[in-house]
């Protein structure tokens, strides 16, 4: 249709069928959906998921896409279960293979990494904020990009981190991807740092020097994103190079 190239394409509701489920941690599950008319996506984008109860009540939540761009009509989301969540308990405990979910997307053109980007990339994740950054890392790997990447991943304790083996394998075979974990509650006893929040010294030791002008992607709970982006800015990174995505105080967004 004329004009669609200029204006992108309408974001619409589609039906996805659950084809696989995989537990990432005790409280987080990856749901693989097959979406026959999926138009493709860019790493970093999200979808809105609409869940409707038998009485007609419906709720919409946004979830980052974890899978890299692909031509198979496959979309993976990783959902963290929140104790008082309205949608996440259903998605992490009730949904089964063969179930159908309503999806709107892909959404977003700012918090994305395109495979043609070659500049140094700094990724900073807090908790489940790793999900869109994992799509970015997987996208980089799937096209064989050699863009220099650093990931700083803040989690409460080792057992709450997502995708650990895959991240380890990717960084083992590609030294231009380096990963630093920062633990806020419990750190391994042989780790380099006691548990604590990301601070200026962690930023100084684990992120690109600002004179390399990395593009930074920060994702996590709102308080985490505000703190990490302020630290990046204070260490000399231009605000325009810091892209952020916030999940709110409850994390209910993702």
């Amino acid at each position, binding site marked *: 249709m004329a004009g669609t*190239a200029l204006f*992108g394409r309408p974001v619409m509701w589609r039906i996805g069928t659950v084809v696989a489920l995989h537990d990432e941690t005790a409280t987080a599950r990856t749901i693989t959906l097959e979406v026959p008319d999926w138009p493709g*996506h860019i790493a970093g984008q999200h979808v809105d998921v609409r869940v409707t109860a038998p009485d007609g009540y419906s709720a*919409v939540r946004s979830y980052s896409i974890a899978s890299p761009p*692909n031509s*198979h009509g496959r979309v993976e989301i990783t959902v963290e279960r929140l104790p008082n969540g309205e949608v996440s308990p259903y998605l992490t405990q009730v949904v089964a293979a063969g179930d159908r979910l309503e999806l709107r997307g892909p959404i977003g*053109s700012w918090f994305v990494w*395109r495979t043609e980007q070659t500049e140094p990339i700094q990724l900073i994740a807090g908790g489940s904020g790793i999900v869109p950054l994992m799509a970015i890392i997987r996208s980089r790997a*799937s096209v064989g990009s050699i863009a220099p990447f650093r990931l700083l991943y803040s989690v409460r304790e080792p057992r709450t981190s997502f995708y650990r083996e895959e991240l380890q394998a990717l960084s083992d075979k590609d030294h231009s991807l380096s990963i630093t974990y920062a633990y806020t509650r419990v750190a391994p006893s042989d780790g380099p740092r006691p548990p604590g929040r990301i601070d200026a010294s962690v930023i100084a030791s684990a992120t690109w020097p600002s004179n390399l002008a990395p593009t930074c992607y920060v994702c996590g709970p*709102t308080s985490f994103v505000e703190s990490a982006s302020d630290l990046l800015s204070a260490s000399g990174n231009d605000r325009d190079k810091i892209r952020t995505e916030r999940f709110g105080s409850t994390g209910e967004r993702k």
Partner: protein
Amino acid sequence: MISATYDYLDGNAAAGELSKVFAMDVTAAEGQCAHCGAIKRFADTHVYMQSPGVVARCAVCQHVLLRLVSIRQRVFLDLRGMTYLTFDSAHDRPSEPTHSAS
């Protein structure tokens, strides 16, 4: 600190709802706050979605930039808090060419 609680999301979270009215993605669009004059990406706005609609506030001065409420078939959009919103179609390219990840 301006916000004592971090109960807001950001413009990324509102983009799905706003796709009901905008043909182009809003997250990369740059808008100017009519109150303080700050020019920011829509992705950087503070967004509140607990209410029946969406309220986007300026990340700098907290003034309301946009309100969107959907009631049945009707969508109400109030943009008086922004002097303009500018979209760059270079950002709104469709998805990446797909590669054989199979």
